[in-house]
């Protein structure tokens, strides 16, 4: 489902498309899903869960917010490099998929915001108090960069974006010097 949607778009995908790709019978499809939308919603949950698991797994191997962020963002970008169609389904094609899909998207962005804002405590130790808006601005900004590339089909080398994304994410929490260091490190 996600590959089909990422490939031909949500509107262009029908139950037939999914059946053709999976070699399932129609009855088998409707045993598990009530409709195309229901199938997409379940696939969306599944896809987001896979991405988040990859991010958390990568981050778990690191200590410190910046290390975890670098590893987590790296995992996200590698996922997009290896499965751009799934990435496009989750990030771009979720928009035409209806209100429930959009609510799931909002919830996923909120989890990203919380993940990012773990930097707040560490920044406080250094005497920095990032504004309340910082994590939302970072999550949305990164989302925009990734979204515009996926939407334009410009899917070569997401991994190469890591230095820039680290720069913009670290800047509000630790200031320009630390941000520049991160850009060099990544």
């Amino acid at each position, binding site marked *: 489902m996600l590959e089909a949607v990422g490939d031909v778009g949500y509107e262009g995908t029908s139950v037939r498309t999914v059946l053709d790709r999976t070699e399932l019978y129609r009855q088998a499809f409707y045993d598990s899903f009530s409709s195309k939308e229901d199938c997409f919603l379940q696939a969306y949950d599944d896809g987001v869960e896979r991405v988040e698991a990859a991010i958390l797994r990568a981050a778990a191997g690191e200590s410190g917010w910046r290390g975890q962020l670098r590893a987590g963002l790296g995992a996200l970008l590698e996922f997009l490099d290896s499965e751009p169609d799934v990435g496009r389904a989750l990030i771009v094609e979720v928009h*035409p998929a209806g209100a429930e899909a959009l609510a799931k998207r909002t919830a996923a962005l909120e989890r990203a915001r919380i993940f990012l804002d773990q930097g707040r405590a560490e920044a406080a130790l250094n005497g920095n108090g990032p504004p309340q808006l910082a994590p939302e*601005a970072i999550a949305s*900004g990164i989302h*925009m*960069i990734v979204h515009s590339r996926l*939407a334009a089909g410009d899917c070569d080398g997401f991994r190469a974006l890591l230095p*820039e994304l680290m720069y913009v994410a670290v800047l509000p929490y630790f200031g*320009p010097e630390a941000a520049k260091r991160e850009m060099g490190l990544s």
Partner: protein
Amino acid sequence: MESPISTYAPRTRREQVLGAMVQVAAAEGYESVRVAEVAARAGISEEEFGRMFASKSACFLESYDAVIDVLLAHVAAAFEASFGEPWQDRVVAGLRALVELLAVKAEIARMAIVEVTAIGEDARIRYRAALERFVPFLEEGRTVGARGEDLPEETARFAIGSATAMIFNEIRSGRGAEMQRILPDLVFAVMTPYLGVEAAEAEMRRVGG
């Protein structure tokens, strides 16, 4: 302030039809738009509509372009009117013009910014292209901070993404008519990547945040 409505009044019959399409789509949602209603509102027959536009969606996409042109012209005018002033002031002027227009035209803003993402690929391409057109305004910010050349290539897109997400959320939460309230937040989101947090916070406080 001169009303944006009068500034961008339709001049031709075609523009009247485009204006009617925008009004109907904003009020009822694109799916519910009937050509007959748009034609009636513009004072033409359905046959005339058919001679002007190949389809409902062709008319909608052209009207969408017009909405975006107005929005961009309005922001650009504010930005240009403050030519010679510091970049920060010009960005504030542009953002202020943006939120004022979005608030006055809340229904159209909802259609152009939130619903457009569900209307179809052609509309989404236009929306993304529209966002790209804000890049040059922001990129002048590279000449302001000491770190201009070191800034990531994607800085403008990042800043636009932060700002758009806030606007999107306000509209979705039903607060589109009070968009001026988030002007300080937008100033902060747009300026932080260019100037750093402290300078951006100072700018935010200057506009009342």
